[in-house]
């Protein structure tokens, strides 16, 4: 039986399979080239990119917690000009989609980054980060109100000509209404969830475990929260939903798909198993075969 794994996120973003890598967990792809064929991926979402270079937060930036980790990297990146000059050329060789995650401290910053990326033919989509918990200005501040989320989305809708994905924060009272506001403002898809605001204390040293005190929790620990939020958002909006949060295998990915996600992102678990993406893709095909499903799209939103 021929099995279709291809999915369509609309506005020109078609993936050969539903598996993307989450921003900030996969570098620029090349870090994983010794372990997997990057062309097997539906796509990869490269590190959060800002207008100016950012050095990120002080160390320590990470602490492991049960079935997860808290990080506060703080969007360390070389800036959009560095990306265009030094990273983009090597990314054009891949048949997988390359999506750039965009961050900013102001609405104007977001728009400027998008305008600079617009001429890059290979980049069919940007993912807008309105949900980073680890930078003071921008980031999550925009993502926690309907007005803020809509304002950034609307500005990028003007500045960016192709697929516009908006990454939502789970650190809100009602994520579905934020998703609705983002849809109204012109997003082509939403991805969720970014990390959950969290904290850990090193009791021996009697101080916070990471330099910023609070950070973002990711990994399998957050998965049930993420699946719930994807289910809520998928019932509210009519644009495609991309689900992420603690995916480690095909069964985890299928939870998101059955809850309503068109595609998924694998993040933290790339650190544990650099081959988790291709194993998940193989596992999705195997699941479809075992269950007599000829098209992965038929499993979407069945819950």
């Amino acid at each position: 039986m021929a099995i279709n794994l291809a999915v369509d996120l609309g506005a020109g973003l078609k993936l050969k399979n539903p598996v993307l890598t989450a921003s900030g967990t996969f570098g620029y792809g090349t870090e994983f080239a010794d372990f997997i064929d990057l062309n097997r991926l539906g796509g990869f979402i490269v590190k959060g990119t800002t207008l100016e270079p950012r050095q990120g937060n002080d160390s320590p930036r990470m602490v492991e917690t049960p079935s997860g980790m808290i990080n506060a990297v703080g969007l360390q990146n070389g800036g959009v000009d560095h990306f265009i000059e030094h990273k983009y050329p090597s990314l054009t060789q891949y048949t997988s989609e390359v999506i750039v995650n965009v961050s900013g401290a102001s609405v104007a910053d977001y728009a400027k980054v998008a305008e600079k990326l617009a001429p890059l033919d290979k980049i069919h989509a940007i993912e807008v980060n309105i949900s980073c918990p680890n930078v003071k200005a921008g980031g999550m501040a925009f993502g926690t109100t309907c007005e803020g989320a809509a304002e950034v989305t609307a500005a990028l809708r003007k500045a960016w000509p192709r697929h516009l994905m908006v990454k939502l924060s789970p650190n809100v009272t009602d994520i579905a209404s934020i998703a609705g506001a983002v849809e109204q403002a012109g997003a082509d898809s939403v991805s969720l969830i970014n990390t959950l605001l969290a904290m850990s204390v090193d009791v021996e040293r009697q101080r916070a475990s990471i330099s910023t005190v609070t950070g973002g929790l990711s990994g399998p620990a957050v998965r049930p929260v993420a699946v719930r939020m994807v289910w809520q958002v998928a019932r509210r909006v009519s644009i495609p939903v991309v689900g992420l949060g603690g995916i480690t295998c095909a069964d985890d990915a299928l939870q998101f798909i059955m809850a309503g996600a068109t595609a998924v992102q694998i993040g933290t678990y790339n650190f544990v198993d650099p081959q988790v993406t291709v194993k998940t893709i193989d596992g999705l095909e195997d699941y479809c075969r075992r269950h007599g499903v000829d098209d992965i799209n038929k499993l979407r939103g069945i819950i």
Partner: protein
Amino acid sequence: MKEYLLDFKIADRTVLPGGCAMIEFERADGEKLPPFRPGQFVEIKIPGVPAAMLRRPISICDVTDSGRLLLMVKPAGEATRHLTLMPAGSVVSMIIPLGNGFDTAGAAGKRVLLAGGGVGAAPLINLCRVLADADAQVEILLGGRSARDVQGLPEYYRGSEQVHVATDDGTVGHHGLVTGHPVLNERFDTIYVCGPTPMMKGMAAIARNRGTECFVSLENMMACGLGACLCCVEKTVKGNVCVCKHGPVFNINELTWQ
């Protein structure tokens, strides 16, 4: 250097009096070890402790005469304690080799000191052999809280001319910190250090004062080991860099320690 994701089987284990386990691994597929440099490390996934999600970075200690990979594992938490207790035949996944390793070029004829504190003694074992094979004159300086922390270790440093010891309680060797050992009054061409941060900073200060070349191997908390997550960064004269990728070994002149 190409990185591999490989399964390894525990072949043998020796527990040292200080509690660290010297564990020998063979590739599960029976093939030879991939090439590596002294000071490189592996990221090991410890099975049986599901809540401990991340791999653990562990320095490569050495390759044995029978071609086995030797790792020194300190039972620091639940996962590493479990690893020290796993029986022979158990299989673990490793990413190998990672990091830059020590620069050993031009070692012939040089007098070098390798200073290790606690489990920091591990990467110096292979380094000692490589430098001695390159005709350097190698001396070792080990530090611990008490005699049992260093007991059983000196015999691993093959090719070394002398193994000096410092213990906090004076039960063996110099009574006090590694940084106070009298051997440091002598002249060395290069000092290589791996240990707790205060010890490395102290050694770096001594080397800087004397104008001695000095390399340190850092142990910042890591997630991926591949340079992707940017969690383990160290502030350097060139900005924040990943210890896992650009390190773990740094010339002290690259660091912002003063």
